């Protein structure tokens, strides 16, 4: 992350300031269009809107209280089928930016003409709460933003232990942690720099105080994270515990639909390949004294983990989508932290770092062996 940024003071709130910034960019032709969240007419959710008319920008809310659709999915729809010629900017939460970077590595998003903007994220409110109390929640969230409250308990659980709420490889970053009526606009890439240059803004302010503020919050969240992981570990340790955890899964695959990284056209678990004939099932039932439906609850979850955990950005969408309240996101986050550590990889942190599937390191096999060995000895301790 850059060491310097431009500082702006504002009177009418941060979100206003961000909208003004975008409008100014559009006026100067720096961006032809922007993609921003707008509250839907029924008032109970937000939708991503692509707008090239400056006058609509005021209807957008750059820091929305919820995340109904992961921003990376919106950008994928916009750019997968080829690179448009319009220069587009978008403001997204850090986890949305990271998912976007992951998808770009998998050729699902084209970032050539896209400028990614993010901010110090206070978190998002679970959809289930927002749905019914949306007006109250709007007021509450506005307070959270203006009061700079980064550890509110009302947020999604993953937000509570998100240590990367500010650290994100965006082109431009709005940093305001611990600041009052002030925000730093921080250019992190060449793209970001050129935006500021065109606006004739000097990024000469030292960021050390802000960085310290961020680090303080990070400390609290790190501690939360350790606590949560400690809670999660026994619930997924071994097949029996996994079985217990996923017992109530109804096989709706909502978690898969909500996941920004799960991008396959046809999921293996929805395909005929995983279907079995009645005879086979009866055979298995005979052997085990009965089998449950839907089938493959654990297979599906573990399969998704093995496919996706290296790219998981812990955005929590899967958990928000789960109708039976399985803590999918906490489990994913825990497992991902382990797999990503193994391959010395952090999903979405750098566009230049190839995904582990594409690279082979001589020592990775022995490392995995070590992890398995450790896991086995951990397991015996639990017993």
């Amino acid at each position, binding site marked *: 992350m850059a060491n310097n940024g431009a500082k702006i003071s504002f009177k009418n709130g941060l979100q206003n300031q961000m909208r003004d910034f975008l409008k100014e960019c559009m006026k100067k032709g720096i961006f032809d269009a922007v993609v921003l969240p707008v509250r839907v007419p029924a008032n109970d959710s937000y939708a991503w809107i692509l707008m090239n008319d400056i006058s609509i920008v005021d209807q957008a809310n750059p820091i929305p209280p919820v995340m109904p659709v992961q921003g990376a999915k919106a950008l994928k729809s916009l750019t997968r*089928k080829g690179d448009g010629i319009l220069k587009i900017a978008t403001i997204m939460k850090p986890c949305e930016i990271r998912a976007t970077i992951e998808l770009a590595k998998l*050729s699902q998003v084209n970032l050539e003409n896209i400028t990614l903007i993010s901010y110090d994220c206070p978190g998002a409110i679970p959809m289930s709460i927002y749905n019914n109390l949306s007006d109250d929640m709007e007021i509450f969230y506005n307070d959270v933003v203006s009061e700079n409250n980064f550890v509110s308990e009302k947020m999604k659980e993953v937000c509570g232990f998100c240590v990367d709420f500010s650290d994100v490889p965006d082109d431009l970053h709005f940093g305001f942690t611990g600041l009052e009526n002030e925000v730093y606009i921080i250019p992190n890439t060449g793209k970001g720099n050129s935006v500021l240059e065109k606006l004739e803004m000097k990024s000469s302010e030292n960021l050390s105080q802000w960085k310290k503020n961020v680090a303080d919050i990070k400390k609290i969240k790190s501690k939360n994270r350790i606590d949560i992981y400690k809670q999660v570990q026994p619930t997924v340790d071994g097949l029996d515990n996994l079985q217990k955890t996923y017992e109530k899964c109804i096989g709706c695959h909502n978690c898969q639909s909500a996941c920004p990284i799960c991008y396959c*056209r*046809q999921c293996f678990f929805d395909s005929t*390949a995983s279907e*079995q004939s009645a005879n*086979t099932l009866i*055979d298995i039932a005979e052997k085990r004294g009965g089998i449950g439906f839907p089938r493959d609850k654990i297979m599906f979850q573990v399969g998704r983990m093995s496919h996706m955990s290296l790219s998981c950005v812990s955005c929590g969408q899967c958990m928000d989508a789960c109708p039976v309240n399985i803590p999918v996101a906490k489990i994913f986050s825990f497992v991902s932290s382990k797999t990503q550590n193994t391959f010395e990889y952090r999903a979405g942190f750098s566009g230049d770092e190839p995904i582990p*599937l*594409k690279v082979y390191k001589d020592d990775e096999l022995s490392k995995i062996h070590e992890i398995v060995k450790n896991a086995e000895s951990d397991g015996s301790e639990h017993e």
Partner: protein
Amino acid sequence: MKKKIGVYVCECGPNIASKMHIDKILESVKSHNSEDVEIVPIKHKLLCSVQGKKFLEEDIKKQELTHLVVAACSPREHNTTFMNICKKSDLNPYLYKMINIREQVAWVIPDKEKATEKAIQYINGGISRVQYQGELFENKIDAIPDVLVIGGGISGIESALSLANEKRKVVLIEKTDKLGGNSVFYKKLLPRQGAEKDFIAKKIAEVTNNKNIKIHLETELEEILGFLGNFEVTLRNVNNKDNKIEIKIGATIVATGFQLSNPTSFKNVKYKESDEVYTSLEIEKMFSEKGKILLSSGSEPKTVALVHCVGKDEKKYCSQICCNYMMKIANYFKEQSKEIKVKEFYKDLCLPNKDDEKLFRDTEKNGVDFVRIKDIDIQGNEIKYTGINGKNEKTKFDMIVVAPPIEPKAGTKNLSQIIDIPLDEFGFFQEVHQTTNPTGTATDGVFIVGTAQGPKGISNSMLMSQAVSGKIKTQLIPGEKIIPEVKTSEILEAYCMGCKTCLEVCCFGAIYFDEIKGISRVNEALCRGCGNCIASCPSEAIRHKHFTSEQLFQEVIEILK
């Protein structure tokens, strides 16, 4: 159509028969009989014997089997045997499955009941799997016998000469404006090699006059696409890059050769500080052109130092030929005048060929001094060294000749990207297997020879050229078609998301990207069926024709039942 699956259990004499109940196995597999499936369970004393093979061949026909499972030894022993029997009996060999009940059951499970049970499970798995196997067919494709040789040095010339004939044309391209490479500068080859300079000249004349060899000087490779038997190549003029030639060939030989490293880059030589420090190649050139080796003043040197292994420690490899050619150069001086005092400084003498030691003895006899050293520093005309006896010495010489390491020709890296051969840690082209396949690369039909692969002398370079010629002559026979691997990967269009992960993990360059559809595709002529792409595909869009998920799934389910 009803499936008729033959399940042949080989007793392997007592090896299998005494370790399990074969009849129980035969009885048990009948449980697969159904409306759609008929099992034909048969045991035989020794299926791999002459009688056994004949019996199986006839029985497949007689029983009109649609599928075959053979439960016997390791597929490593006899998979090919039984596949060939299938072919003879007109059963597609990919509708057959071999189950190992000897090494994996009979020899490792002492309990007869348990062994029987395990064998039944394995065979059940095979019966289940074989039903999901599909017919695969060998696909014969036309092959062009012609060859492109890149590099007109001695390796390239030898490659062209040993390959070209009426039925096989060779295109030889050379970046510079003349053939012969470094070797044209040598006044003499090593004494043991008998021949003198006209050996090279004769080779050049021979290649120039061969009507089956087309030579393009000042030409380089722009692009190469394709696979063994069918490469499409674009060549271009070095000076005028728009001047292009397109050709089709069946194989390519990379013979781009070497250059001497710049001795100024090594810490123990201050090369340019004196005009009288020369590289070995400069001496060769001088001797070739002038017939004499003289100081820049024009007078003859009275004392000469030859310093071996300059830069070896930095490069971390031995250049293999320097000890030999330094002795040759020592003899040049002695030939010029017996009075010239010649001293060779070396750390280890590398004399790996059977006649090298004789050259060393002869050179010694010729009055050349050999000094084994631990360390050496060349400062202008002065040499400071520590002898093997630990003593530090300092001596001035009229002339100093150094032997810098051989390094890959400039442009090697660029070519490696065009032709897609990786480079090794030293920058030479990387062979596919150092010990057993030193001339092959990961791409079938692309070969490396001579010093492009690593330091070596003329003789070994030429042998390498002939080795590649031996391979090409036996793989690309004029008028004959080639049969690529049958068990390849295939990409299911409907599933592919175009993330290109597979492109990066394929070792054989067998996957390309279809820009119009935005999906990856397999070039079946290049695919060897290794399965890397399948394992890496995040969307499960790739499958192996003979190892589909379904085949494996069904086999495993049956075994685990």
